[in-house]
């Protein structure tokens, strides 16, 4: 009881925009997250790195209740959102650019962007997204399923920006993309971060992620093994061996 109260008090510190406390999640009998705790302060860029199957995407999705947390808590600012209906998070300014893009293939590019809005379409925001990704403007009436992989990733990010989120969650935006496209996308993300959006980035590509973010966590088999400044992590021996080759 006392413990929970302390946890709550920590959680309500307003500077933490995302705060995950002792999250445990399961797929059937198999535990995918073991007491994961991490936070992202407002204005920060934080990354979570880890090998295939470490549980990175599980953590990202569990913020939205897919899968439900069996124990532990998630806070957005000082509001607890643990296992809340996913659609409520969108109205709190949280957006996910998921692993594998998950655009709506049968809709046009423009309609996909509209799905990213949470209120009436803001024309200025749409213009900004088209400005950031000109290819989306020139393909706006094309079916999204016919876009190339890189274009789909841009669409997924563009869709994420349509709500002007406070907190942008990105799950492996570099996956399957050519180095040049990865560079482009991270340049865009840097701009978004500089404009004040808080970013939590999940990456397998540790070298890119650690250069991009300020702080990082290392997830191994569903547990946080290491945490710290990216500079420190980059020079950590275990990180270098396991993730930076």
């Amino acid at each position, binding site marked *: 009881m006392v413990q929970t109260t302390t946890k709550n008090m920590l959680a309500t510190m307003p500077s933490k925009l995302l705060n995950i406390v002792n999250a445990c999640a399961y797929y059937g009998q198999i535990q995918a997250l073991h007491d994961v705790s991490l936070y992202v302060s407002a204005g920060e860029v934080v990354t979570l790195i880890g090998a295939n199957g470490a549980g990175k995407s599980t953590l990202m*999705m569990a913020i*939205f209740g*897919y899968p439900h947390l069996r124990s532990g808590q998630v806070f957005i600012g000082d509001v607890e959102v643990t296992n809340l*209906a*996913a*659609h409520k*998070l*969108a*109205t709190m300014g949280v*957006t*996910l650019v*998921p692993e594998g893009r*998950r655009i*709506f*293939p*049968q*809709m046009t590019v423009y*309609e996909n962007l*509209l*799905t*990213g809005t*949470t209120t009436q379409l803001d024309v200025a925001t749409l213009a900004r997204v088209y400005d950031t990704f000109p290819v989306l403007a020139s393909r706006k009436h094309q079916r999204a399923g016919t876009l190339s992989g890189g274009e789909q990733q841009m669409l997924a990010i563009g*869709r994420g920006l349509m*709500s002007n989120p406070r907190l942008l969650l990105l799950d492996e935006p570099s996956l399957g993309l050519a180095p040049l496209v990865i560079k482009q996308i991270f340049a865009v993300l840097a701009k978004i971060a500089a404009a004040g959006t808080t970013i939590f980035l999940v990456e397998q590509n540790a070298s890119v992620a650690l250069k991009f973010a300020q702080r990082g966590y290392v997830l191994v088999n569903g547990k946080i093994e290491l945490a710290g400044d990216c500079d420190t992590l980059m020079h950590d021996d275990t990180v270098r061996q396991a993730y930076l080759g």
Partner: protein
Amino acid sequence: MFDIYVLGQQVLNGVILGSIYGLIAVGYTMVYGIVGMINFAHGDIYMISAYVTAVALAVLMAFGIDSVYLALLLTMVMAVIITGLYGWAVERIAYRPLRGSHRLAPLISAIGVSLVLQNYVQIGQGARTQGIPTLIEGSLSIGQGDSIIQISYTQLLIILVAVASMCLLTLVITRTSLGRDCRATQQDMVMASILGVNINRTIAWVFTIGAMMAAIAGVLVTLNYGTFDFYIGFVTGIKAFTAAVLGGIGSLPGAMLGGVLLGLSESLFSGFINTDYKDVFAFAILVLMLIFRPSGLFGKPEVDKV
């Protein structure tokens, strides 16, 4: 024996019948598209609408509304709203509590709802065939004597209202934010919810809209034939389901087209081959489709949902 006028008449009848099937079929197809399951209570939703039509007309008459078209309009509105609520209730009672459980569970509960609706109407309204008086008299005809194609004003109304409803539905699905939410949910439910779509509300709307379309069909059929009983939902439901399968279940234009195709073939079959076996004919089409082309006449093989 072969007569171009008979052919013309049967084609016309087929299109009219088919537009009714199409109106009901969109409910099957939309629900399947979004939850991946057949709504087995949908035929009975249509049956409810026939009863609402009769009751609404009687009530309006009692209130002294003597303009037929005003009465029809109000009846249509009442039938759409009340039957829509039944569709909403089916989702709340038979589907939502079982979402995420075994696939068979909601099917069984929907059959349960179907039986409840039939028996509830039978107890409340009696098992006898009921009827309403003919409201719209007269017809248009082309030709004379034996060489004649006739279309009654009621049939004309059916075609007009059916086409208008289909257009309206298409607009709602393709142009409104509710329609976009429906399509997003259909394509990726989890992602739609993460982006802020209220999944429960959207699914409830899909059941409700499907029921509203079936309600329009119920009003039109009742106007045309004048008679109905508590069991009409069964045969018509299976036929509309056949139409949805013909067009590729999950596809909205497919359901509309499938309805017209089935109506046409049924009408030609009964006009030129045999009237007594027209239901058997429709069911044979269903069975053959399910065996040989479960994804529909135009569809590509369906990726199994869930």
